[in-house]
């Protein structure tokens, strides 16, 4: 019980750092809103289909990804500034600390993308549906999975400046190799078959396409929800193990 309440306390503190970083929040909001209202509208004028309504759910998911991945930045700073070492001195197990960060990533992603989703509902009223509401718990799950990616970056970048290069590279690869910004048919035309398969199984593609089903007035299938749950849980488990490894090392050696 004590572990659980301490876990929640650390989650709350970690999450508050995300919303306290004013420049980051302003950057993310400006980026995402200008993407929706400028890039989406202009590209629509250049394509044969209404790219704007396709793009807006994509921006919601891209925002969710950025917000969830920010947990990696906080852990990176925490490790270099001694915050993680302090957490480990509290009555909190390594497992609970790892879970607190993953949970914080999930909540950060959900809260930030939830705000973007509200804007999206105003811009694209067709998105208002039961399917969209059903997506919220899955967005939380995917955000936790994406927090797991941040853990992988923390583990393999080994700290220092390399962390930022790794984080940006991973973000570029995950977004570029997904259907967040373009339809699957366009991806299939350009990329080889095996990469196309990766694109389809990318959790970002799955959640973006699921969010778009309400635009086509189609119900979300159980299969697509199961796939989202499986791939996100896989990333979450991987992230948990990575954070566990990082924090175990810190608790023994005092550093990564």
């Amino acid at each position, binding site marked *: 019980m004590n572990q659980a309440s301490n876990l929640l306390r650390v989650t709350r503190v970690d999450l508050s750092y995300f919303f306290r970083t*004013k*420049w980051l929040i*302003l*950057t993310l909001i*400006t*980026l995402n809103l*200008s*993407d929706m209202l*400028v*890039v989406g*509208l*202009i*590209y629509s*004028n*250049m*394509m*044969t289909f209404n*790219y704007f309504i396709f793009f807006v759910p994509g921006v919601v998911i891209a925002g969710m990804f950025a917000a969830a991945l920010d947990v990696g930045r906080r852990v990176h700073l925490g490790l270099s500034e001694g915050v993680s070492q302090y957490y480990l001195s509290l009555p909190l197990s390594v497992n609970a600390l790892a879970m607190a960060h993953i949970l914080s990533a999930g909540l950060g992603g959900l809260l930030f993308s939830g705000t973007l989703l509200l804007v999206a509902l105003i811009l694209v009223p067709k998105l208002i549906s039961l399917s969209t509401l059903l997506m919220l718990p899955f967005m939380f799950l995917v955000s936790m999975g994406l927090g797991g990616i941040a853990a992988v970056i923390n583990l393999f970048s080994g700290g220092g*400046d*390399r962390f930022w*290069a790794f984080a*940006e*590279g991973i973000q*570029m*690869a995950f977004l*570029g*190799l997904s259907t967040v*910004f*373009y*339809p699957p048919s*366009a*991806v299939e*035309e*350009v*990329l080889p078959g095996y990469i196309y398969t990766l694109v389809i199984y990318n959790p970002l593609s799955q959640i973006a396409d699921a969010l778009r089903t309400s635009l086509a007035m189609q119900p979300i299938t159980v299969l697509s929800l199961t796939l989202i749950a499986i791939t996100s849980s896989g990333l979450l488990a991987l992230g948990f193990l990575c954070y566990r490894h990082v924090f175990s090392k810190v608790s023994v050696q005092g550093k990564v």
Partner: protein
Amino acid sequence: MNYLRISTLLKFDLRESFNSALWIGYSWIYFAFQLFVYGSIISRLIVTVNNYFYFYGTGLIVLSTFNIASWSGRRFVESAHEGRLRYMLSLPIGRGEFFVEQLLHGVTVNLVRTLPPVAIVLYLSKLFSVSSFLSTLLVLTLVAIGVMGLMISLSVIAFKSFDIYSAIVAALSALLIRFSTINYPISSMNSIYAGASLSNPLTYGADLLRRAIGLDSSLLVNQDAALSMLLALSVGTLFLGIFFISRFVEGVKSS
């Protein structure tokens, strides 16, 4: 202007900047990925621009230049934050010379990092010639000087609050990039966006670069206006930067 002092400090700074091969390699990989994955896929969907792939590629080069120039400005602010600037100012070098050194450093880093992307776009578009190559580098240098001057001038804000500086630079960068012709021609924008884009120097930088490379000029802004705007930006921010550095930089510490 003492060129020996400038070159000594420049060599020191460049050694530090090129110390990390990871960042340089990363910027090339980023360019290649964006061009060959995002650019290839999105150009399949665009129907109003012939060869959007190359239009996008040149925009990406300007974007790289903008990012590197912004990084140079940010580096200046971070050096104040870390106390390195105080040491630099204690060296026997004039404030104007110091500013010129910072600019030359940024321009050199920019040229090294954008050379392979420029070569790739020129080679793929079969528009490579000595004149197109040199004029491309000249345009990129002008863009880099203009953006760096702007970012270093904005560093005055950082001496009050680093957070506010970061927020302003991030928001300004996002808006400057989106309200420009880096990714789309002005003919695709509605009148409000086109108006905003026409008051943005990046629009002129991107379209002038496309002319320098030799891409279809029917969708681009007027060449003379673009050149005048870019020169005005470079010269204007150059003097603004020198003014701010000589007036406000003494004894500062970024908070």
